[in-house]
């Protein structure tokens, strides 16, 4: 049975098998710790039988005025636990918190332009491509900024796609 609970420090020492996936970024310790310290309610882990970590999600909330939004920093599921809509559950959790607790206008995330399975998954979850960020990933690959409007954005203004691609220095938030 799967348990989705708050991520804790010890989980950092147990999630390397989830991060072995080539599309999952592994940050340094202080990066995870700052997220845990600042946005603990955005940091969840799905734990499976045998207390094995199946996947996790980490995010934050930032912005001002109508740009107040939730952001998915990382969401990943270990390969052996995929195709069970676990990412969908983790994403819904983040969206719920952004919507109900933080009253954000939208949720956004960045995804590699070549990562078609992920893009399709986010589109199924209701995300649209808001803009393309040229050479976002290590100055080589483009990234797609995908957004999903929340209930506070009644007119869905936040997800009207931009007409042109942007460069990383034009981004308001990293």
């Amino acid at each position: 049975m799967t348990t989705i609970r708050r991520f804790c420090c010890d989980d950092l020492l147990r999630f390397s098998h989830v991060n072995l996936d080539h599309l999952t970024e592994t940050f340094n310790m202080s990066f995870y710790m700052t997220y845990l310290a600042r946005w603990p309610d955005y940091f969840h882990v799905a734990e499976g039988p045998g207390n094995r970590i199946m996947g996790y999600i980490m995010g934050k909330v930032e912005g001002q005025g109508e740009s107040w939004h939730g952001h998915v920093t990382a969401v990943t599921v270990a390969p052996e636990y995929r195709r069970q809509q676990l990412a969908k559950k983790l994403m819904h959790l983040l969206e719920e918190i952004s919507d109900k607790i933080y009253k954000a206008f939208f949720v956004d995330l960045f995804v590699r332009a070549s990562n078609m399975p992920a893009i399709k998954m986010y589109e199924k979850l209701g995300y649209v491509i808001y803009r393309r960020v040229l050479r976002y990933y290590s100055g080589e690959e483009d990234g797609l900024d995908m957004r999903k409007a929340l209930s506070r954005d009644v007119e869905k203004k936040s997800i009207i796609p931009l007409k042109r691609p942007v460069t990383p220095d034009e981004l308001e938030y990293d």
Partner: protein
Amino acid sequence: MSRGGRNQIERSSRYARFERGMESNGIPPSPISSGEQSVWVDVSPLLEAAGNELKEGELIHGENFSLFAAMSALEIMDPKMDAGMEKFGYRSVEEAIENGAAPIPFSTDKTTDIQCIIDVMDHLLSCEAAWHKGYPLAQTVFSCIYLLRLERTSSHALLHSYCRMIRTTCNSVLSVVSDARTHEWKKQLLANSVPVKTQRRRRFLVVASCPPYMEPLQSNPDLEEGYCKALLSRIRFRKYYYHVLMCMRKAQGRGLELARKHIASCLAELASIYGSSEFLMANAHGIRQAVIEDRTTASGCQPIGFHTGLDNVAPTPPRAIKIISWKKALEYFEKLLQDLDIICSFRLDPLLEDVLQFVVQFQKSQPDLVARAHLQLLLVQDGKLYGRDPLSDVISRAALSQVIKDQSFQKNEFIIQLGQLVINLLKILCTNAAWQRRKLGKILQDWGATAAQLQLSSKREVDNVLNIRVEEEESMKLSKHLLCWTEEQTYWIAGRFLMLGFELELYSPSEYCMVYWYLYIVMFKLLEKAQLRIVQTNDSSKKKGKKKRDPLKDGAKEIQYPSHILLLQCYINLSEGLAMMLAALSNENSNFEKPSIFNTEQERFIQHFELLQKAHVPEGVSYIMFKDLMNHVNFSTIMRYNYFGAAQLIARDLKGRFSGDPEKMSELRRVEQVAEHNKIALNVICQAGIKDPSLKVSFEFTHHACFAIAVVKRS
């Protein structure tokens, strides 16, 4: 704060800076080690007292120490940030030296001193091999304290010279790999501020100053000869290795012949080094290494003066590494030298197809990065082949069988474009198999795009044929020749891409049929283009010939195709035969390899050939075409066409042509064996009856890396 966090602070603060004012608390300062402007004082009792005051859940909060700052400061396994990290021994080089970790001399007893220096030399060899294999320089070669503080060794001539030589050779290897820019192994190879560079042009001193009489090396006369031989072989190996690296870096391959001589000497010294191990083990002195098979020294003793993790300036924590054993290090260097010898024996052929064949053949021995970087730098220097032949000459020789020195030809946009593509291709062919395959797939589109532009250019000229001037007619012919050659190269790249898939074991048995079918088509098109180019070139040379020719005689004279074209024909027959056999097995035997339940056959076809299809290599090929052709194949069709028999016939004819080339002869033997085995297997299957349920057919790559043989068994 948790108890663990409190302990963390206690430990980490043991070495915290201490304001002078704190001395008034009556805690006696006890200096540990000092810097220029400060004195270290142990504040553990104070912090222990403060820590005891903290209760569970309480957090220290100061003006500059918020929760965010606290979290940002947490690191694991970073020696600078993780005070709780287990440090294996010393915190710095200086501390290690102060504690006698790198004594000079090693011992006052000369015999022990010599034993120790030989151990250091052996361990450095193992470290160097580990570095070449991909481990960080800081954790391998530069875990040697003597190398890190070279000036200390000046009183020990042997050690000093040897260390200088290590630095020089490491620098040379670094510059070769960095110049080759292979993208492989960048972080490990490019040292993070380890002091590699030395003064240039310092000669390698075997002995600083050698008096006319020879002092004994050590104090035991019975062991003198053994130690002299052991030491000499190691020093000479270094010397010759250094010369090999220097000679191979000479421009335009001028030093290759001399490099071969040094390589031969190197190999001889390696054999002597290996031979010294029995003597050194028998007279070993110090602490033995735990696992004797993994020993990094010939004597089996722990070398003095090596510590990892000192002066670690890398931003990421050091990963655990295992230094290669001494025996494996010797094997590594032996292979490296053999690979370098193959490179040095290359005749610097001006013909591009010979260069490509050489590189492909060279890669079969799976050379390591250092050898491949040397090859790449030999082939491509200053934008020219061997630093000598402009790419325009290379292309004109390859496409037109003659060198055109005309300026307008050299500045032709297609020639420049093709020149870039050729340089890129040569660089890619020098990388490891996995990277190579990935890049070859990607450049197919570039080659395809250039071919399309050439086609457009020649078509435009044909459309204007009525108003064509002489120059335009020449330009049209040039575009045609270049187009033919470009297409030929594109198919060559596609063929290489597909065959590398076999070497990398990327295909499952249920996919062999489609892969051989695609390979057959690509090779067939390659053959077509190659033959067309030869005919075009022959026609051009006939027209240019001044003698009056008899058209009847010329027409009757058959074009003799080069041997590599005939070998290609062999491969085509084998590919076609295998594709047909696999299709027939699939059609007629329900138990034969069934596709997996996860992806359909069409999905796998698209996955494997996506890059080829995107580049239209070749045009019009699709999964539907594959299925239409393969669905009706049966064993009687295969027996009628005798694909493997045809391959055998060509191989037999080629033996005469390849008789002087051992590598080509062994390739022919492999091709013959594959053809023979598969022919027999076909006969067995036809006689036994394919529908026999006890018949089991599998495919193995026993004789050739790319062409399988059918193994028929009765269960």
